[in-house]
Structure formats: structure tokens, C-alpha cells
């Protein structure tokens, strides 16, 4: 069974440019999450999809970030325009039952974003 796949694994862009990150969850997982880890800090929740609907987007930093999950399969996270403080590792995770309780979240390997 394929795991959570994220693309690209690394992205280096200049301040003001646009970047789009992609996440393919495990097949059949309705729940998809985006998290971000800025260097030296904790992993922070960004948002949660249930199928194609945004269940919780309370962690999105500002309106420069736009997440979509058309058709309830893969998701994209666009940053436009990127700022220096957006640098970090962006993780995607998926789960079947919508938990984070005893049900595991399966994380992708992350996209390392560097904004110069």
C-alpha cells in the first residue's frame, strides 16, 4: 500500500514568488491534514479536510496560503506571494476515520520550502 506522497521534496524560491505543494493521501483516506514545522519550532497544524471540504482551517497563517482538495483526492497548498518566514517543512498527513485519537495519522516525508 502506497503511503502519503508529497511533491516536491524540496523547493527553493525567491521572496514574492508563488509555490504550490502537492499531497497525495493514502487511497481511501477521507481525512487530510497539512502541518508545518519552522526550524527549531514545533510542528503546527494548518488545516484539515474531510473529503473536499475544509473541516478546520484555524491554523492557516494568513490569506497568502490557499489549500484545495478538489474531488476529495489529492490536495494542493499554494503560497502566494511567499515571504521569508514561510520557510520550513510542510507535512501532509491522512487518516481514515478522522481521528488523531488512537487512530494513526500517516505523514508524508514533507516538502522543505526555502524562501530566499
Amino acid at each position: 500500500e502506497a503511503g502519503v506522497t508529497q511533491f516536491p521534496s524540496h523547493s527553493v524560491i525567491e521572496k514574492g514568488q508563488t509555490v504550490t505543494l502537492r499531497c497525495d493521501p493514502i487511497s481511501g483516506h477521507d481525512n487530510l491534514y497539512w502541518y508545518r514545522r519552522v526550524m527549531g519550532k514545533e510542528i503546527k497544524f494548518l488545516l484539515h479536510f474531510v473529503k473536499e471540504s475544509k473541516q478546520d482551517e484555524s491554523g492557516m497563517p494568513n490569506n497568502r496560503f490557499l489549500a484545495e482538495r478538489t474531488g476529495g483526492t489529492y490536495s494542493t497548498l499554494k503560497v502566494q506571494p511567499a515571504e521569508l518566514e514561510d520557510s520550513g517543512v510542510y507535512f501532509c498527513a491522512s487518516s481514515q476515520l478522522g481521528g488523531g485519537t488512537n487512530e494513526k495519522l500517516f505523514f508524508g516525508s514533507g516538502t522543505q520550502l526555502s524562501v530566499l
Partner: protein
Amino acid sequence: DQQVKQNSPSLSVQEGRISILNCDYTNSMFDYFLWYKKYPAEGPTFLISISSIKDKNEDGRFTVFLNKSAKHLSLHIVPSQPGDSAVYFCAALRINSGYALNFGKGTSLLVTP
């Protein structure tokens, strides 16, 4: 307003001995606590969890202890193996606030032969 804190950024333990990783939290309303393990260039992987109504959960070499009055939990690894060397993240969840996990900053464990 970090609600989950791991105050030890690193820990070094000899192979075969016990590793104890600590985690403190501030929100008494958390329902579940989880530990994730992360290797370099990989995403975190789920290790073990505990409900807030329990005080201990065991899975093989891994045991998590919860002390609600102290708002403290710990992960014990016995015996420690070199393959356990990784970053360990403590996380907490409050179901009524959605399913967002609140993570600590992580503790880097090194198990030496």
C-alpha cells in the same frame, strides 16, 4: 502559547538501558496524548498513544505514563536500541476543538552502542 512542551532537546542513552522522554502540557482539557517518532528526511510516524482517562499504556518496548495532576507524560523505551535513535514528538489532542494535533518541539534521542 505553546500548550505542549518538551524541555529536553536531546538525550543520549547507552544501548540496552532505559530511555525516558518527558513531555509537559498546559491544557487540562486534552483528551489524548500521542508520541510520534521521526527519522531524518522522513515524516513523523505514530508510536503509541494514551487516553486522558488512563495512566499507562504499553506496547512492546514502549510504555507511556500519564500523570494528569502534574500535567506530565513520559515515554519509556526499554531496552533502548540503536535503531531507536530519532526525534520523538509528544502531541496532544482535544476532540471538541477538532482533530488538530498540538505538538511539542521534539527530543532528539541518540542510542549509542
